[in-house]
């Protein structure tokens, strides 16, 4: 019997891993995400490697995995701010995100550095067109051209107009084992042209660093965005990985055993069913590891995080790829997501609308299913519209209480006299409206009947007694958004507002959990919390969101 199933070992590991998870939470820093990846010029070549290594999990376990990586650790990274930060190891989980342009071709050269008993490997590019391979007209594999152990193959891939969006790539060889072991990644195809109504990179750059890969997800006026996050959802059945690792060791040592009475195995024979996932990953990491920075050194083979941040009113593009075996009901707290596209196919309304323009047809969903091999893009926006009380705790008579005048949509924007928040190179806000994009109908409307501190009275409700509630790690201590309101409404709470580990006073954001609503999947090998769980923060405009941290 494998030691993993010893009950005592399991109980101890569960306890230890809770402690480890708790400690990891304490020391995690407030990191952001973006959608980093590597790119090449049109017609260029990505030199990828398929190799073996270990992924690090928050319960302290290193799991033997396979992944795509780079043959040499040199690449052109996007967004450009990641150029000095990014790295590309010889294997990583998930594989490098390949960023290309619609209407161009690129080549992927794949070297098979997997252990020889693992056999051939390959890559499929569903949704894109492989126009040529080094195998020529007759592929040596069932689905595509495969690289034998130690060998290199090439795929010439075309991303014609119409393929913009987010796509998966993954192994086309012995997929039940190779995809489970980690051989998957994503291709982002940027649109060939940008609609004129989107905020140009130059305009964004005049106010803050632009972390977008493009101003729009598609060449369509309703797909502009201000910020973007890529998440890939996969699982691990650690028994499969342990089997592969132990068989490889046996195969390697077998010929050295004297008086061998049997012929040594030369190929893996890993049982992949029945499938029992016990690790649930977003971008190759379990919570809380996914909250550390992109390219954080403690995860050498898991460079990508999942830690979305946004300001009120920003259009946030969610690029979501289902990898692995299972569907996951990805629940976004905070608001609905407007689904834009499925596998890079923009969902458009039928043309019988009054303006004749093409409008969107994607659903508004608060639960967006991820499905293996399928990708979707969606737009998320949080504004606090319709809460019925002022989320900023604005109170007439308090110094610095800003104005809020409504634009045609009811928000405080440049159309109604607001100025765009602008940050210097140190990330300090130097000009602009701190309540940019406020929902003006709720401006100055009080929440509290018996307020703590200097916020308005006369509201409908008395807040919970701070002595009888337990505060969360992301709780800024008040109902309000931003350090101004947080400091003004401070009371004698057990945890002083702003002492939240993940959400310090200068930030004072409000946090929303983005997670799998098959709740057993927000665990790490039977330990809660963990697994497929991100915390999204809506930050006040006074807090600069630096996606590279």
């Amino acid at each position, binding site marked *: 019997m494998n030691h993993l199933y010893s009950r005592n070992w399991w109980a101890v590991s569960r306890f230890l891993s809770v402690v480890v998870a708790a400690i990891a939470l304490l020391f995690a820093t407030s990191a952001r995400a973006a959608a980093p990846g590597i790119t090449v010029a049109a017609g260029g070549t990505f030199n990828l490697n398929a190799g073996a290594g270990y992924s690090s999990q928050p319960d302290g376990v290193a799991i033997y995995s396979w992944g795509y990586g780079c043959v040499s650790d040199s690449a052109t990274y996007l967004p450009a701010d990641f150029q000095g930060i990014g790295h590309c190891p010889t294997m990583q989980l998930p594989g490098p995100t390949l960023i290309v342009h619609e209407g161009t071709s690129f080549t992927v050269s794949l070297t098979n550095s997997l252990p020889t008993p693992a056999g051939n490997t390959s890559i499929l590019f569903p949704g894109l067109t492989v126009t040529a391979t080094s195998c020529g007209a007759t592929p040596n594999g069932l689905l595509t051209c495969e690289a034998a152990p130690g060998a290199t193959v090439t795929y010439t891939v075309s991303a014609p107009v119409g393929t913009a969006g987010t796509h998966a790539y993954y192994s086309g060889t012995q997929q039940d084992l190779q995809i489970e072991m980690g051989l998957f990644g994503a291709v982002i195809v940027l649109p060939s042209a940008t609609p004129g109504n989107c905020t140009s990179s130059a305009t964004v750059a005049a106010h803050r660093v632009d972390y977008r890969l493009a101003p729009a997800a598609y060449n369509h006026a309703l797909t502009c965005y201000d910020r973007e996050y890529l998440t890939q959802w996969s699982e691990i059945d650690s028994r499969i990985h342990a089997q592969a690792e132990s068989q490889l060791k046996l195969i390697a040592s077998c010929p050295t055993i004297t008086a061998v009475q049997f012929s040594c195995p030369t190929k893996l024979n890993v049982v992949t069913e029945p499938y029992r996932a016990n690790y649930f990953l977003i971008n190759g990491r379990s919570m809380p590891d996914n909250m550390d920075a992109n390219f954080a050194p403690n995860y050498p083979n898991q460079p990508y995080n999942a830690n979305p941040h946004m300001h009120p009113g920003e259009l946030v593009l969610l690029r979501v790829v289902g990898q692995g075996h299972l569907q996951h*009901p990805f629940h976004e707290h905070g608001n609905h997501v407007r689904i834009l596209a499925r596998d890079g196919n923009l969902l458009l309304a039928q043309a019988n609308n009054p303006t004749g323009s093409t409008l969107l047809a994607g659903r508004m969903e608060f639960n967006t299913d991820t499905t293996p091999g399928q990708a979707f893009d969606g737009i998320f926006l949080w504004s606090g519209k319709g809460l019925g009380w002022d989320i900023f705790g604005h109170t007439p008579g308090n110094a610095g209480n800003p104005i809020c005048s409504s634009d045609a949509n009811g928000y405080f924007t440049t159309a109604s006299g607001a100025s765009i928040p602008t940050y210097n190179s140190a990330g300090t806000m130097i000009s602009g409206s701190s309540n940019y994009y406020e929902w003006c109908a709720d401006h100055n409307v009080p929440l509290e009947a018996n307020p703590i501190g200097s916020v308005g009275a006369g509201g409908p*409700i008395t807040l919970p007694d701070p002595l*009888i509630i337990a505060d969360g790690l992301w709780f800024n201590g008040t109902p309000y958004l931003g350090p101004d309101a947080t400091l003004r409404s401070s009371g004698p709470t057990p945890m002083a507002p702003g002492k939240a580990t993940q959400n310090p006073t200068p930030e004072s954001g409000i946090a929303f*959990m983005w997670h799998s609503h098959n709740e057993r999947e927000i665990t790490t090998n039977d330990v809660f919390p963990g697994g497929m769980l991100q915390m999204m923060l809506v930050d006040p405009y006074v807090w600069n969101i630096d996606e590279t941290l």
Partner: protein
Amino acid sequence: MASRKLSSFWLLMGLIGIAGLIPAVVSAQTPPVEQGGGSFRVQCPTATIRHPGSTATGGTGTVVTPSPDTAEANYTGPQVRTATKSPDGHTFPSLTFTDNGGAIKCQEISGGDGMMTEADGNQTYMFSFGPLSGLGAIQNGQPGTTFPNVFNSPYTAGDSLGNYQNGQPNPLFNGTSATDPNAVGANSAISDPAGIMNTGVLNGNIPAPLIAFDEDDEFFLTLSNVGMIMRPDLFEQHTVPFHGYPNASSFYDGVPDATWAINIGGSVTYYYLAPDAGTYFWHCHVTPPEHIQMGMVGQLYVRPRHMQIHGFDPNFHFVGMTFNPEGFADMKDKYFLLNGRSYPDTVGVVAGTTVDGNTLPASWTGGVSGATNPNPSTNAISTTDTDSINRPSQPMPTLIVLNSHGGPNATGQRAALRIDDLDVTEYQTLSSVGIPMLMVGFNAKLLRDEAGNNLYIKTNSITLGGGESMDVILDSTGIAPGTYFLYTPQLDHLSNDAENFGGLMTEVVIY
């Protein structure tokens, strides 16, 4: 979370806290709004800035709803109005509102534990929410949401002896039946600590108390954490996330990591201005794989019928009642529940009852006769708890009865099914045999594209993942009288643990 590892320290405090509460409850109930006596308290104002009623708030314009604490007003279009004073007398510079009417609604629930009865007779332990207001209505399968004038009235109901559910006397008892869905005294909030403990302990319902209010209402939801008497080693907080609330605040979103959670022995009140109409739901968000699997799931609609899919893993629940670590990776549901009941309990109504205003036809031979459980007057299933007291645990059957000529112009009646799924392990499919389904809403949004075209889906099956809701119309027009089935084609889900026939299935009776 990790706090369980600190249980020895917290447990001591917990015992002191509760010991301090129980002797403090001798005083008679003092209605309304706030009173001393431990940390249990409810909030349900009779007037607010948005719904001042006849209270003077200065400013200009007409208040749409004159008595928001007792009644709805017909919607006659928005009124722009300004206010310079809150109903409690605070003045401020003029605030401008678009007054769409609506009223004030309140509800109180307990967070604790309880037992429920599976369709094979097995009794299952739950972490659960139970009703602390609207008790009469909830036992009759109705929402427990009330206007303030009802909520703030004294709870004067009891059993035939005038006792609370646990046998302790209700000093305010005036002869009102605790199962009366209409009497004020049976539906008001229990707001004194003695009443809360005497009622809330072990009174968990599956699904949790139904909440219903209308667009533009202000809703005050008080959660009183009565502790889990079967698990004194746990010191669990509870929360209520309003699942799917558009443009939510984090503060009232109920994710304990992002905000706060209420400790045992205290109450908190959540405040929501009703968002867009739709089918939402709620559940506990503390250690969700545990608390949701264990039953802390409820339904909520911002205005017909609601159905909830859920699954129970009996092994997990058994472990949950004991003091052993729980496994999540091996969680496997064996009971498949519609509104907390598996077939045949889903159609477990007393023979001859009226269902949604329709009298069951004589041709339908289901139901139970001469029964005491389900309760012949309310159809609620009760479960005997570990203190040997019988409490209503599953008030909502899912039998659907439709008159195929009972709609407008003799068309068939249509049923709107509001279906949500809070299974924590698997996707669930529900299929309809004989009656087509028209899926009109998903995740609380009407299925329309941005150009206004319908994207309704005509189908015979629907699939939901955990955390999803769907609105489906069943139209009985032209359907031959008879009994039809809604059931899962995931055939292994048509079982009640070891019983091969049951599970996720209910009946639609057309006459």
